[in-house]
């Protein structure tokens, strides 16, 4: 660059060029003498002050700026003149045209080799920066106001565990002052599973629901949203921004909702139960009617049956020994009466709706007696065997009805074995047999009636307990339904196991009721 030539002559000749260069510099540059009058001003400075350079020389700030500004500038100037160090000032300057600029002013005292003292100053226009700063401040104020008023907890946490900011909402949630909050270990703020640290939970951008803790107690259910670690430009370490939405009430709402859902379910279940009960009641009503009807029919039929039997009996007595050869006919009359009476009994068993009347009994004794009585009525060809396994167990049962149960099962077995007098194919060695077994099992008492008859087909096995279903040429189809009903009235049931050709096993079971109080 030629202006920085090495010869003094060239340096002198370059002063004009230097001044022109200074005019091109965007920074305002001025020089004042010891009396604070301008001795130099470049173009940029002239623009700030609002005057041309030649009109400015010999004048001071007081000639251009408002009085208070000029006074402040000149006071600053004097302090610089008294100081060996350059100084910086942030100044607000209003030029003659009324425009205002913020300027960062650097001023220094210069003493020439000739002993003259000057003040050299530069101004950097920071008006733009200043307004940006103001904007930032306004923005920050707005954000702060937002942070302080939103119904969301906000927590700015540094990696080192120090809290940079916590908003009032979060403080209110945990009932702490800012100072108390600052002293709290961040790890104690959230209910976190023991295998995870706080950092694991919020260190990555995440969203989860957990309990918010304060002094070891759950204070709220919170939806937590974390920004994850943020690298803070220009600031050492990382920080995380965590927000908390109080979802306790939402959780409550969820609980209420769950409850309503559960109640709805219960309601629909109850409605179904009600329907079933209604149906049951209709059925019970029908059964009660049927019971009444059956009782009436039983009474009305048994009277003439009794008359028939007694008359036949009288007849038998009257002709006894007279060789009239009608004994067989009289016997048939009596068999017919017995059969009719059995049908009436089955109808009564099935239709009876009165509650069972329990009495305490030694069950094996009772069973042995019933089997003995029934065995006497069976055709002689049928072998009957009874294995008692209850060992003196006393339980409360309705002995009348339960006897009907067994009588039904035993007579059924007998009928399948020798029903019409023909014996199952198997030859002369075949012995029709019935085995009755009592035992105590997990569910109570089991009494099995087992025959070695023809068995029941799978198809019929499905239907044998249906009312009115019968495979007999002469039967009501009410025997097994009545048996099942009596067992159900005792809290038990009837199970049938059979395969064609392998006999059948009818198991009556019912729970043990050992006292009458228990039965009531």
């Amino acid at each position, binding site marked *: 660059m030629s202006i920085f030539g090495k010869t003094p002559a060239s340096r002198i000749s370059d002063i004009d060029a230097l001044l022109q260069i200074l005019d091109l510099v965007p920074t305002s540059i001025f020089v004042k003498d010891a009396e604070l009058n301008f001795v130099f001003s470049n173009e940029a400075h002239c623009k700030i002050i609002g005057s041309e350079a030649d009109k400015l020389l010999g004048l001071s700030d007081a000639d251009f700026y408002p009085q208070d500004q000029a006074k402040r500038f000149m006071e600053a100037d004097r302090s610089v003149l008294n100081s060996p160090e350059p100084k910086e000032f942030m100044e607000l300057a209003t030029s003659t045209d009324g425009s205002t600029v913020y300027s960062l002013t650097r001023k220094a005292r210069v003493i020439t080799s000739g002993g003259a003292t000057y003040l050299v100053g530069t101004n950097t226009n920071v008006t733009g920066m200043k307004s940006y700063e103001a904007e930032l401040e306004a923005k920050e104020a707005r954000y702060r106001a937002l942070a302080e008023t939103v119904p969301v907890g906000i927590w700015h946490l540094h990696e080192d565990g120090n809290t940079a900011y916590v908003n009032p909402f979060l403080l209110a949630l945990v009932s702490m002052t800012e100072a108390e909050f600052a002293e709290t270990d961040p790890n104690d703020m959230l209910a976190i599973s023991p295998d995870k640290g706080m950092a694991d939970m919020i260190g990555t951008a995440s969203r989860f629901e957990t309990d918010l803790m304060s002094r070891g107690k759950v204070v709220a259910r919170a939806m937590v949203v974390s920004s994850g670690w943020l690298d803070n430009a220009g600031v050492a370490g990382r920080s995380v921004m965590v927000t908390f939405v109080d979802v306790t009430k939402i959780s409550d709402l969820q609980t209420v909702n769950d409850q309503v859902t559960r109640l709805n379910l219960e309601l629909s279940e109850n409605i179904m139960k009600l329907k079933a009960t209604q149906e049951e009641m209709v059925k019970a009503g029908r059964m009660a009617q049927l019971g009444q009807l059956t009782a009436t029919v039983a009474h009305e039929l048994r009277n003439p049956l009794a008359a028939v039997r*007694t008359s036949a009996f*009288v007849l038998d007595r009257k002709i006894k020994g007279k060789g009239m050869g009608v004994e067989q006919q009289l016997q048939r009359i009596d068999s017919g009466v017995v059969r009719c009476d059995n049908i009436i009994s089955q109808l009564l068993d099935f239709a009876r709706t009165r509650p069972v009347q329990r009495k305490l009994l030694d069950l094996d004794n009772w069973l042995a007696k019933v089997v003995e009585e029934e065995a006497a009525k069976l055709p002689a060809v049928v072998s009957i065997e009874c294995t008692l396994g209850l060992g003196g167990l006393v339980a409360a049962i309705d002995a009348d009805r339960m006897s009907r149960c067994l009588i039904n099962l035993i007579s059924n077995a007998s009928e399948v074995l020798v029903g019409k007098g023909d014996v199952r194919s198997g030859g002369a060695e075949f012995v029709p047999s019935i085995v009755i077994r009592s035992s105590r099992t997990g569910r109570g008492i089991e009494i099995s009636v087992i025959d070695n008859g023809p068995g029941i087909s799978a198809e019929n096995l499905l239907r044998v307990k249906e009312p009115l279903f019968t495979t007999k040429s002469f039967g009501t189809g009410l025997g097994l339904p009545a048996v099942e009903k009596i067992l159900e009235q005792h809290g038990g049931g009837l199970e049938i196991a059979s395969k064609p050709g392998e006999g059948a096993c009818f198991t009556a079971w019912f729970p043990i009721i050992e006292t009458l109080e228990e039965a009531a």
Partner: protein
Amino acid sequence: MARTLSILVLDDNAENADSLAELLSLEEHKVQVVYSGQEAIDAYHATPFDLGFFDVMMPGKNGVDSFLEIRQVRPDAKVYFMTGYSADDLLKKAMEGGALGFFGKPMDLPLVLDVCQQAV
């Protein structure tokens, strides 16, 4: 046959009452038949029967109530009941009131004759 008994048969069903009476007569007993409870009470007032066979369910006064009334006049009256179906409550009342027992209809007649034999 050892001794003749005086027996009252009570049943509103005449065929039943009559056929039983006939059977008992065949066995040489002295049998009176009545068809209502009130008649039975009146009959017991007149005669101390050795044995009675009473139906339970009848129009008007039932057999059990009639029996209980008779027991007030004849505290040692011996009566068996006959019933077409188990009228549990009435039968219980009868047994508590001193009845000897009951027969289901149609009756087991050899057993009827047995109890008569025992009463002799």
